[in-house]
């Protein structure tokens, strides 16, 4: 329904609206008189009510929030309380004393075990107590056993200093022999947890154990000392006797144990001095000075003779406590046996000297005998050859003048016999040369075919005459050897094979084994039993043959000596009844090597060795010396020769000249050896290039040369090696 009654006239409606408007305006402007107070109050109250309700709602919401946060606070408080209870319970269950200080070093909480044994301390502990007060309280406790000379103040100062360290663990001694181990641990927020662990039991046990160990160790030590075969006495830092062993009693005849203890070292020494006889360079005064030295004594060692018949070796050493220990070893027996040994040694040496002289005489006699034998053989052979040649000439001319076949046959046989004698004598000459070590080898490249072919031509008829098949396989290799002796070796082996073979044949072949050529001579002869294989190489030994067919038995002896001298290892394989095989190895010269060496030598011979090079040659064998001198001088170098070491040294000192190179024989007769001589020369002149020459191929000499840094040239001397050495020196 509208405010306006539509049935009214417009005028009426206007009039009514005007009145309505006026009423409303009066109301709005609060112009109503006192009679409107009631409604105004109602209106105000209603408006207030609205505001109050809104406020109330806000307030209630706030209250709800407050209650909620109160509830949360309460829950948090409860949790805190629970946590605190749990914490308290937890720390109460710890067996250690527990205290927590906050980051400001104020006490937060402790458990009941904390400071339990410091009975006057717990009452003073309270929450918020500064750490410093806690330390002071502990330091003043009647139950704290302060170390000697430490006041409560200094103890607490040290304790407080410790507190500043990051990690703290130390033991505290309490009264009634109780011990606490106190440790501090820093918490994450800078607080400190102090744990007190009662370690009394541990420390007591430890101490018992230590005492027990010490007793035991002392017993063991004393037993060990007593067990020693030496007298031992120990002095403390005040030089008083504190311990010794039983042996000591006997050695020094100390007074009984109880009265000796504490005796001063000087008193002991005074008492004994008159009986002691110190070894050279030491006396009682020096010993006193050593003992009186307060510290830093160096060990001393000397000998004394007591009462003239007991020898004591004395050894003194400082102990860690500035005392010292002296041990006495009775060396009387050793000294006496040493003296006896020295006497015996002297006697023996005299005998050795005497015997050596005897042997020297015998040796020189033997050498003389041997040399005269060789000379005799050589001279005899040489002298025999002349009449023998004459005899052969006579027999030849006799044969020409004879007509009868019987007579001719006899002459032929005589001629043949003479030829045999000639062969034998030549062989004897060879042997004597080889034996006397006078053979001079001319080692050079040799083509095997140059050896083998002539032998085939010569010996095939001999074999055919016995109905044997001789086959000599040609060989393209070039080897390194003395051509004359190589030919003689092969010849003797083939001749020997033919001689001891009745049927079948003889085969000669060369096979290559690495850098060596093995020359093998096979036969189908009677063979040689193992037991006889040694003796076939001895002179004048022949096996099961009639003289008619055989030579003197020098063939294999020559082979054996020549192979040895040329370093061509000789072997024999044989089976009785089947045949034998003699073989020896020769080093191979490769074809291209030969060429290049040849070229090299041409160059070297012409230019390489410096003209006027001075070479000291020490060789006691005159022939070898002559050969070497000729060889070296042919290279336009000068040679100073001495026959032995002593002469060489004398010569060097006379001429005051340093040679450019040394060539020393190792075996120089009775005097210095080559190596000894070299050391002497080097001592005077420094490092001069050197070659040592020797026929000795033993491992000992090689080792000695290696040790001395010397190159060894083995005899027979390799011409090229020597040339190369001198060429290097001159460069």
């Amino acid at each position: 329904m509208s405010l306006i009654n539509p049935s009214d006239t417009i005028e009426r409606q206007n009039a009514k609206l005007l009145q309505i408007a006026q009423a409303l305006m009066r109301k709005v402007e609060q112009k109503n008189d006192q009679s409107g107070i009631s409604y105004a109050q109602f209106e105000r109250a209603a408006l207030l009510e609205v505001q109050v309700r809104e406020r109330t709602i806000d307030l209630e919401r706030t209250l709800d929030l407050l209650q909620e946060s109160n509830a949360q606070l309460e829950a948090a408080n409860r949790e805190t309380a629970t946590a605190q209870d749990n914490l308290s319970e937890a720390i109460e269950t710890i067996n250690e004393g527990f205290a927590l200080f906050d980051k400001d070093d104020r006490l937060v909480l402790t458990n009941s075990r904390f400071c339990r044994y410091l009975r006057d301390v717990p009452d003073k502990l309270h929450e918020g107590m500064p750490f410093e007060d806690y330390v002071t309280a502990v330091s003043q406790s009647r139950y704290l056993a302060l170390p000697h000379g430490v006041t409560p103040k200094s103890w607490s100062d040290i304790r407080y200093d410790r507190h500043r360290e990051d990690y703290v663990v130390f033991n505290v001694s309490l009264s009634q022999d109780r011990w606490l181990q106190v440790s501090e641990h820093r918490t994450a927020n800078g607080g400190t947890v102090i744990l007190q662990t009662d370690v009394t039991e541990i420390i007591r046990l430890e101490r018992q154990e230590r005492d027990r160990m010490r007793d035991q160790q002392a017993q063991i030590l004393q037993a060990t000392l007593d067990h020693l075969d030496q007298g031992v006495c120990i002095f403390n830092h005040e030089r008083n006797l504190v311990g010794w062993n039983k042996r000591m009693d006997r050695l020094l005849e100390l007074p009984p144990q109880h009265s000796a203890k504490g005796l001063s070292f000087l008193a002991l020494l005074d008492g004994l001095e008159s009986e002691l006889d110190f070894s050279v360079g030491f006396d009682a005064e020096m010993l006193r000075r050593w003992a009186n030295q307060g510290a830093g004594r160096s060990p001393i060692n000397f000998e004394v003779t007591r009462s003239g018949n007991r020898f004591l070796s004395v050894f003194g050493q400082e102990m860690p406590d500035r005392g010292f220990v002296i041990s006495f070893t009775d060396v009387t027996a050793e000294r006496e046996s040493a003296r006896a040994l020295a006497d015996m040694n002297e006697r023996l040496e005299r005998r050795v000297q005497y015997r050596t002289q005897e042997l020297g005489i015998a040796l020189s006699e033997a050498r003389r005998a041997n040399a005269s034998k060789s000379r005799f053989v050589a001279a005899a052979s040489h002298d025999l050859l002349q009449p023998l040649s004459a005899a052969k000439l006579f027999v030849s001319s006799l044969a020409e003048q004879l007509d009868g076949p019987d007579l001719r046959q006899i002459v032929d046989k005589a001629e043949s016999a003479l030829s045999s004698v000639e062969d034998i004598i030549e062989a004897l000459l060879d042997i004597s040369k080889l034996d006397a070590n006078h053979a001079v080898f001319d080692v050079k490249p040799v083509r095997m075919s140059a050896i083998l072919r002539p032998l085939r031509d010569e010996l095939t008829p001999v074999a055919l005459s016995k109905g044997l098949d001789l086959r000599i396989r040609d060989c393209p290799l070039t080897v390194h050897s003395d051509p004359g002796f190589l030919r003689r070796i092969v010849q003797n082996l083939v001749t020997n094979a033919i001689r001891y073979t009745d049927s079948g044949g003889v085969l000669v072949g060369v096979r290559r084994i690495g850098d060596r050529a093995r020359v093998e001579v096979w036969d189908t002869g009677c063979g040689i039993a193992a037991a006889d294989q040694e003796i076939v190489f001895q002179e004048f030994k022949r096996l099961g043959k009639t003289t008619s067919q055989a030579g003197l038995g020098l063939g294999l002896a020559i082979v054996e000596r020549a192979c040895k001298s040329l370093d061509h290892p000789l072997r024999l394989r044989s089976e009785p009844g089947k045949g034998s095989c003699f073989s020896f190895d020769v080093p191979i010269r490769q074809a291209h090597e030969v060429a290049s060496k040849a070229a090299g030598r041409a160059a070297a011979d012409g230019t390489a060795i410096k003209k006027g090079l001075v070479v000291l040659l020490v060789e006691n064998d005159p022939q070898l010396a002559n050969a070497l001198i000729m060889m070296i001088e042919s290279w336009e170098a000068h040679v100073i020769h001495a026959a032995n070491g002593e002469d060489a040294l004398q010569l060097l000192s006379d001429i005051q000249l340093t040679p450019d190179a040394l060539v020393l024989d190792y075996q120089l007769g009775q005097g210095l050896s080559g190596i000894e001589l070299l050391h002497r020369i080097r001592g005077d002149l420094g490092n001069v290039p050197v070659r040592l020459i020797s026929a000795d191929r033993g491992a000992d000499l090689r080792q000695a040369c290696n040790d001395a840094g010397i190159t060894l040239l083995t005899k027979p001397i390799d011409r090229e090696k020597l040339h190369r050495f001198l060429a290097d020196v001159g460069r």
Partner: protein
Amino acid sequence: MPLGAGAVGTPVSALRRGQVAHTAENPIEDLKAQIATEPLALVALFVSAEADFDKTIAEAQEQFAGTDVVACTTAGEIGMSGYENGLIVGIGFPAAHFVSTSILIEDLKNESSQVLVDRIALSQVAMRDANPRMQQGFAFLVVDGLSLREDTLTAAIAPALRDLPLFGGSAGDGTTFERTLVSLNGRVRNDAAVLTLVLTDYRTRVFSIDHLVPTDAQMVVTEADPARRIVKSINAEPAAREYARIVGKDPEQLDQFTFASHPVVVRFGGTHHVRAIQQVNDNGELVFFSAIDEGMVLTVARPDNMAAHLERKLQDLGRGGRPADILGCDCILRRIEAEQTQLTHRISQILRDHRVTGFSTYGEQIGTLHVNHTMTGVAIYADEPED
């Protein structure tokens, strides 16, 4: 804790409740037998307008000697079975759980509000101090329903109560609007009020139920006599006739039922308050139950379904624990509306089920306000709420 009558299946009773027909031979004696089963801090009597109020009060003074007795006449009673008539309803507040202080406010027309406020404030402080255990409470006002001073009175006293929530009812005189009385401890007065401050260790909640919904129909008071709550003209027309035109009724047949079914309200912001029309006087003017003024805009309101609304609101009060008892001041217009819409029986049933006792009023007080066409009251919870 003693059980109330017929307590089986219902919450433990907080109040001692009794009723008796005013025609009984010794009604107060009967009543005493019903409610004075234990020491009481306070007795409230709601006395039918048909009864002899002076005689009743005199008897009560005798029977309940030593106990504060607050009484008023009614426009109908709310008893054990809902809306009743011709009864004396008695409510006892057991001393074990309640303390109270009652103040008789006389000569409302001339009462100095400051003196009154001081009295109330002092009484409340004294009572609070003496009973720290009693945390909860309310202020219960009965006031002469024809005094025309309810608005001023509530506005004056509510601030003095501070956080103690105020509710109350205007004494009635059936539907005759001639004589309404209040009484405290034998003194029977008109133009007076009795304010009772109650503290308890029970949880309490003061409420106001209003089932009206404002409509678009509005009118402006163009002439009024605020002192006598008489609106003379509306929209510059004689008030009754213009009201009738607005609500679509015959001006000659306006009666209580019209007023009950077509209430008018004033609106402040989001809220509204009923300005109930008491009657049409001989001059064709409207007499109101509450303060009015010229320039006031009246909005016609439409009642919601009262029973459903009441049930819902009382259920709401029971959320988090059913009240043990409810003391209610129910507007006479609601009873008239219930009769008019044949809801009396249903409403009575709801009131009974929710253990509401009280009386029908000529107006209700809630907080600082005097309003109409509502039910105000206090719900008392005997058990701790399950929150």
